[in-house]
């Protein structure tokens, strides 16, 4: 049986040449993402801004959104949105946070339940009060920062500091772009989104680490290779794995996206963008070339790994230099 080779053996693709394009593009996209975040904002879900979310299913056929809108409007609960959610008789009602603390949110739910009566089935009711929502947002942010810090420390411990820094820059770049994507597509930004961001972080680090691992190995083995050549060789060597893995992950995600139901759709869509699109691009075009700028040198790593042996570069040049030094000595 002839097996599928998605990537031909021994590719010699010059990835490093693209860094003059990929860096400005990434910088630009990051700026756009940050601008989007500040100008367009995120569609914060009730987890972070408080409020009420009710999913109802009308018992008699398709929902009449206009009628429902006027029923709920007459309750004077401030801002609210109605939205078809999947099936025609499935409606998502979002009510903004009520003034007057935690108890006021509960009153609002009771009012809606009273107004909609028995014509609907309540599939889901979520109420998040102001005290909880502030906390959840704080915890979410702390969690992200903590995760990045923990991973950074781990990488620092396992590799050189340049690798840790490179991985962090690359992955913060991933997160920034993903947040930009979320702002652009207006997906709900809630606790699940934090989970998605953390998973994207984990996955894309996973990918970066695989390439870094190879770079480290090559640094030890090929001491004469120039940095760009070495990085190119490392990326090419792991290219097939990168692509096969991302294909399988995309297949899993695709199944979740198509059949996993409405409830986790925004989660999977975000993951798809972050892991498959951004993550792969980043490990190849950002995380690896950035090592050149961060000054990963063979000498440094050689010293760190084999302290007792003389460093490579001076070793090659000691002989021709030696007479000159001797000649200089009497002076």
């Amino acid at each position, binding site marked *: 049986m002839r097996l*599928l080779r998605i990537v031909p053996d021994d590719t010699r693709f010059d990835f490093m040449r693209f860094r003059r394009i990929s860096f400005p593009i990434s910088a630009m996209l990051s700026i756009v993402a940050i601008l989007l975040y500040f100008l367009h904002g995120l569609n914060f879900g009730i987890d972070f801004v408080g409020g009420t979310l009710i999913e109802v299913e009308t018992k008699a056929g398709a929902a009449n959104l206009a009628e429902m809108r006027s029923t709920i409007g007459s309750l004077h609960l401030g801002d609210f949105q109605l939205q078809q959610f999947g099936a025609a008789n499935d409606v998502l009602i979002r009510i903004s946070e009520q003034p007057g603390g935690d108890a006021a949110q*509960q009153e609002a739910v009771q009012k809606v339940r009273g107004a909609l009566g028995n014509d609907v089935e309540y599939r889901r009711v979520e109420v998040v*009060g102001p005290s909880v929502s502030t906390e959840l947002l704080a915890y979410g942010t702390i969690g992200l920062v903590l995760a990045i810090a923990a991973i950074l420390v*781990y990488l620092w411990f396992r590799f050189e500091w340049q690798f840790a820094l490179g991985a962090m820059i690359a992955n913060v770049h991933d997160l920034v772009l993903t947040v930009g994507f979320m702002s652009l597509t207006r997906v709900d930004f809630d606790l699940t989104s934090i989970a998605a961001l953390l998973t994207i972080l984990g996955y894309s680090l*996973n990918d970066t680490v695989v390439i870094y691992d190879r770079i480290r190995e090559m640094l030890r083995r090929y001491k004469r290779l120039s940095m760009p050549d070495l990085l190119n060789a490392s990326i090419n060597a792991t290219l097939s794995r990168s692509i096969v*893995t991302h294909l*399988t992950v995309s297949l899993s995600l695709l199944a979740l996206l198509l059949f996993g139901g409405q409830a986790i759709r925004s989660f999977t869509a975000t993951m798809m963008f972050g892991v498959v699109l951004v993550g792969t691009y980043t490990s190849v075009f950002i995380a690896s070339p950035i090592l050149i700028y961060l000054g990963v040198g063979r000498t440094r790593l050689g010293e760190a790994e084999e302290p007792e042996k003389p460093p490579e570069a001076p070793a090659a040049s000691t002989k021709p230099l030696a007479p000159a030094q001797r000649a200089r000595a009497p002076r």
Partner: protein
Amino acid sequence: MLFFTRWKAAGILLTALIVCLFAVPNFFPESTVRTWPSWAQRHIVLGLDLQGGSHLLLEVDANAVRKERLQGIADEVLRVLRQARVPFTGRAVHGNSVEVRITRDSDIETALSKLRELSQPLSGILGTSGQRSINITESGGLITLTPSDAAVTERIRQAVDQSIQIIERRVNELGLVEPTIQREGLDRILVQVPGLQDPSRLKEILGKTAKLDFRMVDQSTSPEQALASHVPPDSEILDGEKGQKYLIEKRVLVSGADLIDAQPGFDQRNGEPIVSFRFNSIGARKFAEATQQNVGKPFAIVLDNKVISAPVIREPILGGSGEISGSFTVEQANDLAILLRAGALPAPLTIVEERTVGPGLGQDSINAGEHAAYVGAALVVFFMLVTYGLFGLFANIAVGINVAMIFGVLSMLNATLTLPGIAGIVLTVGIAVDSNVLIYERIREEVRAGRSAINAIDAGFSRALATILDSNITTFIAAAVLFYIGTGPVRGFAVTLGIGILTSLFTAFTLTRLIVAYWVRVWRPRTVPI
């Protein structure tokens, strides 16, 4: 890399088998599993988002606890100074402390030493922490008593513990199935009730403090006059059920704490719903004394600072039982009886978060999750077969065992499976596959580098495993942080992702290697079919 001692191989297979076997109870109906020995009963619990139910997060009103503590200190100050016969003025609660002014300078030392007895040393984790429950300062005859933060925190902790007990009683009285009630952080309580679709009544029951007092009605003046001029210092104005005003003495004759039973019933004369109650012996004696002394005068039954009714005492009530009538509906009478039996909460509770999922959505989610898992698995299995052939088959076997092991570990932990949890499992399949991909790609490389088949396989494994470890630890760190900060569904995701990483590491390091090693031994291949 490809050599396993017989014992090691057996150990690996046995571990995998045992872990997988733990998943078995999940495939049998609950009633069957119950007849098994208890160690075999552990199974995965479906989260509320999958089986439907209500999740309520309640918060104890910390301010009320603090206020009550301050009032308590003020009362004790009064008692202590009176006992010591120290004249004082201006005893009052100011912000976070109680202040009192000692009239004569010569008494200050006595007052201070007596008041210091109120302040107890707080016990820390190791013996005494050096902190005291009340900090006392004095300047120019003005003594300030401030409860320390640690003491207030301890009070809040106690209030939460008491509340949990009372909530348990209330929830059990409602006849709800398998509720979980647990502390969350310092001042919160999480109540989860599977299968509950409309938590309105539960919320109503949990939202009531149910502090019941029997007090006298102050007849020295009418409530209207008192409101217009001034309210007598030992009385207060309280609202009735229908908005009428009552002037009620602050002194409590008997409190709800002395009740031993309360039952809903019907008034024999007019058939209206009532709640009949019975006092314990202390309460009965207090109630008898009070009613004997006050025949012909009205007293008030006060629930959560609202007057339920204010009947006139016609004759002394000596039997220690009585009934409350207050134009209730049958359900209200029922709920009141439940509340009185369960006891009063030490402080009011507020619902700060509610998440209720109907059974329809839960079932839909399970179906969607299963569907996605099957489709995802099928796609991945097919892809691996096409890409790696026989080795793809090995990978598929390893990944299958991996998934079974995830279910086994989840069962062992009695873990909760949520919809994001299912997503976590699906993603883990991706991770497990990646381990195999890393190994196989490495083997391909080694073959290209000109190694012999067995050499290439050996080198492929040993080089790839280091990378697998590195890359999985980073993802595991992310999962751990997610578990630590996450709540509910997010935590469910972190759990399956974390467990999935561990099991996939296990399968990559042992099972896949074992399968390949066995294949090498039996077939002695010259080339690697990869």
